[in-house]
């Protein structure tokens, strides 16, 4: 993991057009952006496409980031927005491939316990029923771990507004996941 000082240096150099420095930022943040984009769009390939588009935006606008600690929240929110736009522009339903047998990687990820697969599918179905804006909130909060104030700054809401909306979403998801 890139440390804060190295990150500040990399951001400054990348903003000046240094492709190697930009690659260091990509290496540090790409996975977080992919996780967030995936929760928003529900498709691994689409998520990767969204993240590539987000990096393109980041290349252009990186100079606008004044504080290094704002970089990660900004990058994941750009990825979330790109994923949301991709879903909307293609009129795609948020849909996961729900292969019950033969998905070896999913089997390996969930472990020997079939309950792991079932829980994953339940969550996928619950997310599929949400509006893309709500999935963005869920992604920024629970895939990226942002505070409600950080999310509020990124999406133009107050922290209190974010908390209230998340509370409603939590109630709904808890009910749908029977937890």
């Amino acid at each position, binding site marked *: 993991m890139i440390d804060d000082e190295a990150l500040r240096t990399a951001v400054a150099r990348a903003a000046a057009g240094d492709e*190697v420095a930009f690659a260091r930022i990509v290496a540090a943040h*790409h996975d977080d952006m992919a996780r967030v984009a995936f929760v928003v769009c529900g498709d691994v390939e689409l998520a990767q496409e969204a993240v590539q588009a987000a990096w*393109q935006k980041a290349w252009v606008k990186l100079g606008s980031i004044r504080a290094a600690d704002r970089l990660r929240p900004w990058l994941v929110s750009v990825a979330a927005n790109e994923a949301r736009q991709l879903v909307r522009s293609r009129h795609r339903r948020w849909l996961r491939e729900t292969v019950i047998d033969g998905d070896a990687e999913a089997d390996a990820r969930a472990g020997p316990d079939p309950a792991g697969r079932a829980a994953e599918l339940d969550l996928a179905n619950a997310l599929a029923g949400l509006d893309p804006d709500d999935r963005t909130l869920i*992604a920024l909060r629970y895939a990226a771990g942002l505070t409600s104030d950080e999310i509020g700054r990124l999406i133009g809401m107050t922290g209190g507004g974010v908390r209230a909306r998340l509370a409603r979403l939590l109630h709904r998801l808890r009910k749908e996941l029977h937890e």
Partner: protein
Amino acid sequence: MTNLPNDQIDPYESRLARHVGDFAEQAVRPIDAAAIAAAAHAGARSQTLAGRLFGSSASMARLGVVLAGALVAVAAFGVIAGGSNLGQPQASNEPVSTPTNVPGAAAACAAGDLAGVITAWEGAAGHRIATIDIHNGGSGQCLLPRSMRPALIDADGRALIVAAGGNQPAPLAFPAGSYVTTMVDMANYCGAEPASPLKLRLYLDDQSSLELSAAANLTYPLDPPPCSGQNAAAEIQIQALHLK
């Protein structure tokens, strides 16, 4: 895995965060950060005008990748053509580059052009270490990730251990007809008895993959790494590939 921020909204949050974190993990893939940066740079350049004309930045990102490839191809052609107008000598105090190697001019290796075998399978301190060779059977040089995401699979293709996504250094230029080699280290498989024979699967950047079986001269069976603890994660790691 994500840490929940400290401004808790509801006690249920920690549980949901675990679910979402586990769920989102499947989106993580091995990447080539340098290639992504180069594509972003190329795409951003082309977007200054064309992006306004042609639409979303996602489509422009794809265009950026295509343009990056085209630019590299044109550069390579210019170097090869040599005597064309593009190659006219210019007055410069800069050192003249030698037109012998154009990194990136080759395309990414296709799984169908690659064939690999496991040449050794050794045990040490609860680990299994496979030595592998991969051959480029394609017609030309291609670019191979130096560190491909590995998975240990059984005879039915079921993944026993899959590496988490990770970053990759710049790709390796892999000439046609040549071989690369490396080692894959595995540990702590605690699952059910797998169907033999075991194999390794390696993923390319486009998520296609190649499977490696034991070489014909390997007389001993490939066994999974022993279980060292149910509470610890299984591991599989690959070292960087290098030309033989």
